[in-house]
């Protein structure tokens, strides 16, 4: 790490229509925001220099988010409030930054440190009631494991590890919302929409997951989980 560089952490959201972007598309878009903002970003040394930028865990296409993070290294200290303003002015509102702060160089990377994610999964359809969905989810979770197929690959999740917190269902809009906290692990991370889809089919109701929002991402520490920023 170059000694005269500063590590700036930015919290941002992914809302509205841009929830249909892939992680790669979001990364590229934010890299361009940083460039437009005029912040004195640092570049990597080497054959084709690139902006020094690091992101937290990937979000799938279709999943919205309220508190995602990236780190960007700058060559000059810029007061956080000023940086925040510059970034906000240079970013589409759907990906707007909402907090900026400096973090220590020695902190582990976002990708490695963030292990917990909280989601709101909104479901709708015939027979989709708070009780039915809660019961179905409890049954699935009670079985201790979940087999899912994703893109032709078979995955097995140990639910006692993957779901560190109780899953709660509440009525919202014309459907229900389940709040699911997942822990990312070796086998990848459990997609909360898959968990809910399995539960819906167990409950034999004619409903579907309509919208998924990652509401928080957290770093697990001995004193308990904390936000990256």
């Amino acid at each position, binding site marked *: 790490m170059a000694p005269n560089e500063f590590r700036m952490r930015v919290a941002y959201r992914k809302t*509205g*229509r*841009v929830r*249909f*972007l*892939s992680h790669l*598309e*979001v990364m*590229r*878009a934010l*890299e*361009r*925001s*940083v*460039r*437009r903002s*005029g912040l004195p970003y640092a*570049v990597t040394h080497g*054959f*084709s*220099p*690139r*902006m020094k930028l690091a992101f937290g865990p990937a979000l799938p*296409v*279709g999943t919205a988010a309220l508190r995602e993070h990236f780190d960007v290294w700058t060559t000059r200290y810029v007061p956080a409030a000023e940086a925040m303003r510059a970034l906000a002015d*240079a*970013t*589409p509102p*759907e990906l707007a930054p909402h907090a900026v702060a400096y973090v220590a160089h020695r902190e582990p990377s976002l990708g490695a440190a963030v292990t917990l994610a909280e989601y709101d999964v909104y479901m709708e359809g015939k027979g989709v009631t708070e009780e039915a969905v809660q019961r179905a989810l409890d049954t699935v979770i009670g079985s201790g494991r979940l087999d899912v197929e994703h893109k032709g690959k078979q995955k097995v999740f140990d639910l006692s590890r993957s779901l560190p917190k109780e899953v709660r269902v509440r009525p919202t809009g014309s459907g229900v919302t389940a709040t699911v906290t997942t822990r990312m692990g070796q086998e990848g991370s459990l997609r909360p929409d898959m968990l809910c889809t399995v539960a819906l089919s167990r409950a034999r109701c004619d409903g579907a997951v*309509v*919208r998924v929002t990652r509401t928080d991402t957290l770093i697990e520490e001995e004193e308990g989980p904390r936000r990256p920023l």
Partner: protein
Amino acid sequence: MPAESPDVAWERLEGVLARVERPARYIDSEWGAIRGRDGAYRAALAYPDTYEIGQANQALAILYQRLNAEEGFAAERVYVPWVDMAAEMRKERIPLFSLESLAPIAGFDLLGITLPYELTYTNVLELLDLCEVPLRAAERTDDHPLVVGGGPCAYNPEPMAPFFDALLIGEGEEAVLDIVRTHREAREEGRERAEVLERLATIPGVYVPSLYDVVSDGAPMNARPPAPDTVVKRAVTDLGEYRPPVCGVVPYMDVVHDRVAIEVLRGCTRGCRFCQAGMVYRPVRERVADDIVREVMEGLACTGYDEVSLTSLSTTDHSQLEEVVRRLTSRLESTGVSVSLPSLRVDAFSVGMARLLAAGGKLPGLTLAPEAGTQRLRDVINKNVTEDDLIDAVSRAFAAGWRRVKLYFMIGLPTETDADIVGIGELVRGVLSAAREAAGPDRGSVRVAVSVSTFVPKAHTPFQWLGQAPLDEILRRQQVLRDAVPRKGVDLSWHDADVSLLEAAMARGGREVASAIEAAWRSGARFDAWTERFDLTLWREAFASAGLDASSIAEREFGEEDVLPWAHISCGVSPDYLWREYERAVSATPTPDCSFDRCTGCEVCRALGIDLVVGGERRGAQ
């Protein structure tokens, strides 16, 4: 059309987007997109292919900027949904919508569709159908948007003429405002569609097909007043008067030409005889160095891109290129931003410029286009490049660090014999050995890519009277080439000859071809430019169902006195000049570039009342 708010429309769309490939194609919200303009007059601008193919189109970007800058007008974008999305939309009864406001296109005042290449023709019909707008202009009423075409293919508009209310021939900077203002005015006066069209036909450069009747095959079109007998293209006098759209839309998804593009000059007068662009975009008009440098810097700052391309048909011909390149490389030093040139002339100067631009960074791809394998054939097509130029350019490039070069050739060119094809093999061998020699100890990593397309005789070129070589013959010549090109160190690739045949049939046909295009679309043809979706059998059947034969149209020859299907359209270059150029081609006599030398008499300057705009002395190989 029930007007929904964007939020309601979005809710209907969300479920669909969750089920389709690459939903980023349909979500708008990009940086630089212009939303919420409450123009009383709304235009939808369409590119007849997917978002990622059409997003970077510079002509549409110019129109988008021009219209949105005009009080009382608003422009939004639309692309052709991929087949999965189209199926979902039809199932859910969602009509095609604009990206920005998610509003149904059928409710717009105008739908502008650019025609970039012939293989997008079925996509135009798909687009109209998804918009729920009648395919044929004759079936539209006052309630439908005015459907206006433009772009390169408008120079032979006939195969698509029945589907358009009007087509703009030539450049849009000024004409687009003439069209929308005239349309709005005529409607405010309560004019009916037919009267609106008559008025549009009086705007220079505007072709209204319904006012031109086909009398009989081989006879001139009958133009009904006030439509002119010949529609002459529009062109702007001075590019410098129009700021290019430097702060355009910055897409989220990976699109073709995903970078800032600054048009540094328009037109090319090198005079390659196969090249339609070289004829129809005349004369040469350069932007001045100061403007180019300023626009590049501004474009980078407001888009956040890390790459900029200096675009045109022949950027290395710009008289101030060296100055531009030196100023940009010094201003962009150690920013990680790269500058690229889209195509290089085959000479040492061009390679030098590319080298300078790459200083310190990665070398860009090196693409050179000798087009033909022998000097005789290069003289026929007026590609004023010698074998020595090519070898010299390659030697310098490989000495400067390049290890790959891509060479473009064409087969099926007029007067071509097997000796010319064998000549391609020999030229490639020469390039390979020059490259290896220059690469020295690194000779093992040298690769030469050879890309071969099939010649399509295009309208408004000196070869417009000639037919395309028959498919069997092209396939035979491809085999000759395969045997002639060295294998080791060479990657040989082809354009599909089937595709070129269809391209020729659509580029050379008359109004009768429209029925074949419609029949092909009805039997499922769309995205024909996507190799996996192209089906010549389907197309042959479609032509047959319209009583036509695609091969006969592609191979048809015309005499000097014959009326060509595009005779009522003029790009300003005189037919006499084209015929003279054809005769010079047959005798393998080159014609110099008028921007280096004197006027060679194509007459475009007189016809359009404009002149060459060249900032300094043009240099480099002649």
